[in-house]
């Protein structure tokens, strides 16, 4: 595994540096040939049989941990959480005594499907490095649903991922929130009603990909800002003319300016994030969240005031100069200041263990003397990323009315020894550790070898 072994971990954000990874793109909300509204890929909720998961330690991500509690699922939604719930006739009762239940994990920054494994020329599909502005391209149009990493993520308790283009470009394209249900296209995996998102990037990657590698602009951070300002200004003035073809790129940026598309902004350094906040303020808007945001702890009061989220790692540091001030207490410091903080993987490896990432970030906070509750740490991988993606009305906590996206863990999910035993999406069991069956990915059929 040349690249796998030697440089595992350098996916997305960092690997970019070499391979020129991607960015995000967003699409027009209702372009002329707009795709039909997303449908759930899991069978319609009504088809999921009612369930009662009985007797677990339940962490709802919306309140205190409940001992020996039950979770009832009807029509694909959580209907009740509490002790000694009655099992109506026809309800499948699943004994999960001694187990733990949490909401399904949500990864707000993934390149699964667009930088699929095995790494090949064909699967390097997440960065359109032909120009620094690509607001009209969409990650979902590259997404390969046969990526073998998807099943591993699911086995780590992940139910929802936000797939983004890479960060080569200032405006990289549109992201998409997907549920990890079996499907033949990204469309079938979309989280219904998820708002559109736009990947943007600052800092080293666009400088390297264009300035250093191609002698093109941007070569510097100041050019990055100036170029984006002009594009946003053009978009603000843009008015589609009737009878003329829609300019998808500009229209998409116009929707960013109007706040209709959530900006997910790759940005590491505190100073760059502040510049970005000022730039967006010129247009009366703000990013939804800064991603990677390794220096967010330095400006946590500003982020809290601006209502801008932070998507961070537990312990990545040092890979690039812009990661040099990364600290493992970042998430804890941000949480304490009232910033909506989420952990992300940006990696087909870390996505398999986001529960461990939350545990490490929690421990790092405690080690630094910052009190972090387990419930808060759980929100870093559930409720908070749901908010950052604008899907918190339907997923991210175990509250009545929410989608029944949940994980049954073999033990304390903040232990390295815990396994996701069962994973449910909209009340459907989509992973069962006890009965793994054949690989989900067509690619992997016959490849795993005999034990």
């Amino acid at each position, binding site marked *: 595994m040349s690249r796998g072994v030697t440089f595992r*971990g350098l996916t997305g954000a960092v690997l970019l540096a070499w391979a020129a990874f991607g960015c995000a793109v967003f699409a027009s909300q209702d372009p002329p040939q707009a795709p039909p509204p997303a449908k759930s890929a899991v069978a319609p909720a009504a088809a999921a049989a009612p369930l009662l998961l009985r007797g677990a330690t339940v962490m709802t991500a919306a309140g205190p941990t409940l001992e020996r509690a039950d979770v009832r699922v009807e029509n694909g939604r959580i209907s009740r959480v509490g002790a000694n719930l009655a099992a109506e006739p026809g309800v499948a009762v699943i004994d999960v005594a001694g187990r733990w239940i949490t909401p399904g994990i949500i990864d707000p920054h993934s390149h699964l499907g667009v930088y699929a494994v095995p790494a090949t020329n064909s699967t390097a599909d997440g960065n359109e490095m032909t120009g620094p502005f690509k607001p009209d391209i969409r990650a979902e149009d590259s997404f390969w649903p046969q990526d073998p990493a998807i099943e591993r993520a699911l086995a780590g308790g992940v139910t929802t991922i936000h797939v983004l283009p890479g960060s080569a470009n200032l405006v990289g394209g549109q992201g998409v929130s997907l549920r990890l249900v079996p499907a033949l296209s990204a469309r079938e995996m979309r989280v219904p009603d998820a708002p559109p998102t736009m990947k943007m990037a600052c800092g080293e990657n666009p400088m390297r990909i264009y300035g250093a590698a191609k002698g093109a602009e941007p070569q510097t951070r100041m050019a990055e800002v100036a170029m984006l300002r002009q594009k946003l200004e053009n978009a603000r003035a843009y008015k589609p003319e009737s009878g003329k073809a829609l300019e998808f790129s500009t229209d998409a940026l116009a929707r960013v300016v109007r706040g209709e598309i959530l900006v997910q902004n790759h940005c590491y350094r505190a100073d760059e994030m502040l510049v970005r906040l000022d730039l967006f303020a010129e247009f009366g808007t703000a990013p939804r969240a800064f991603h990677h945001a390794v220096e967010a702890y*330095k400006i946590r009061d500003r982020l809290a005031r601006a209502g801008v989220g932070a998507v961070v790692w537990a312990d990545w540091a040092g890979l690039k100069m812009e990661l040099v001030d990364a600290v493992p*207490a970042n998430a804890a410091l941000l949480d304490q200041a009232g910033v909506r903080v989420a952990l992300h993987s940006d990696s087909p490896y870390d996505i398999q263990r986001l529960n*461990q990432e939350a545990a490490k970030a*929690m*421990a790092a906070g405690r080690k630094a003397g910052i009190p972090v509750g387990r419930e808060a740490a759980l929100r870093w991988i559930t409720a908070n990323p749901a908010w950052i993606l604008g899907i918190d009305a339907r997923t991210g906590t175990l509250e009545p009315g929410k989608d029944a996206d949940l994980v049954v863990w073999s033990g304390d999910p903040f232990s*390295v020894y815990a*396994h996701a035993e069962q994973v449910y999406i909209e009340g459907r069991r989509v992973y069962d550790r006890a009965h793994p069956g054949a690989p989900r990915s067509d690619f992997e059929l016959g490849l*795993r*070898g005999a034990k």
Partner: protein
Amino acid sequence: MKSLVLAIALVGATVYTGEGPPLHGATVVIDANRIQGVGTKLRAPEGAKRIDASGMVITPGLVAVATRVGTLDIELEPTSVEATLPFSADPVRAALRAADTYNPASFTVPIARAGGITSALVVPGGGQISGQAAWVDLTDKDWLRRGSAALRVAIDAPGGPPGPPPAGVRSAAFLRLRETLADARLYRANRGPFLSNKLRELSISAADLEVLDRALARELIVLVEVNRASDIRTVVEIASDYGIRVVIVGGAEAWQHAALLAREQIPVVLDPFDDLPANFSALSSRPDAAAILRKAGVRVMLADLGSPHFAHRLRQAAGNAVAAGLPYDAAIASLTSVPAQVFGIADAGSIRAGAVANLVLWNGDPLEVTTWAERMWIRGQEISLETRQDLLTERYKQR
């Protein structure tokens, strides 16, 4: 007492000695740079400095095997990266020594220490026969334990920064390896004629030949970075043909040859995080590879083979191997005593009388993700676990 340094007694901890099951409520006594004793009935010697370690865990210092810790500061800043000569420079450079440029002040070192790592087998990057790995202790001075602890050979990876391998790298790599070993064998039998210019021209330099000679003499272990099952079989064959001692590094598909590797007594360095079919040499990677190999009798060392910026994750990697079926004591051994034995650093990697006093005091299970290393001793000297990250956190916590 032999030295003026006060003996230290760590009292009441659960002690993983690196070999076998733990001792509960045990005492470890450090005298100067050695462990004087360990046991549940051991009494702290008169005048020793006593440290209450009840409720805590002591392990030998962890060993980062096949790491690039200390060879760079910032992975993607070439000015800070050492020992990754491009492949094109000269693919065979056995005489290159990671020890020559190992930098104890590298940004990567304190973060590794905070992860409980006291020692490292530091490999040079780049090339085909990349050079010699150094065994270092992560101290600020006198760090070198062995300047030539192993020879690194890359079959899969040309090493250094990622990118596509040169075309046909695998077959070319095996060709070059065989050619090099054949020349070294010729040299071994004809040193006199070679030095007096009476031997045919050899494919590598005299300095490289000297190093390979030690490999043929079985003094120097050869680390072979290789992942595909069929390639691993070829490595076993070459090891047998030339009588060299090899260690498989990477070994994504090594589990398929568990019985063969056990029979040939070839150890394997595995990264438990590498569980994806990341490329066409690793299509059958699996998270329980360490457990399978161990069960077959293969000596397994666990490592984080990613960027050295992730070296501190070694214990988490081992925790995941345990979750995937590796017995706990074997996981601890794989991080401590096994590498010390395999690479012949006889007094390292375990807590027993006479061993070098490299040890870590943890506030709980060292393989868990919610614990941390509280204190560390290297060769009997307590060393600070503070990182630049801690200083940054302190500075900004106050604001």
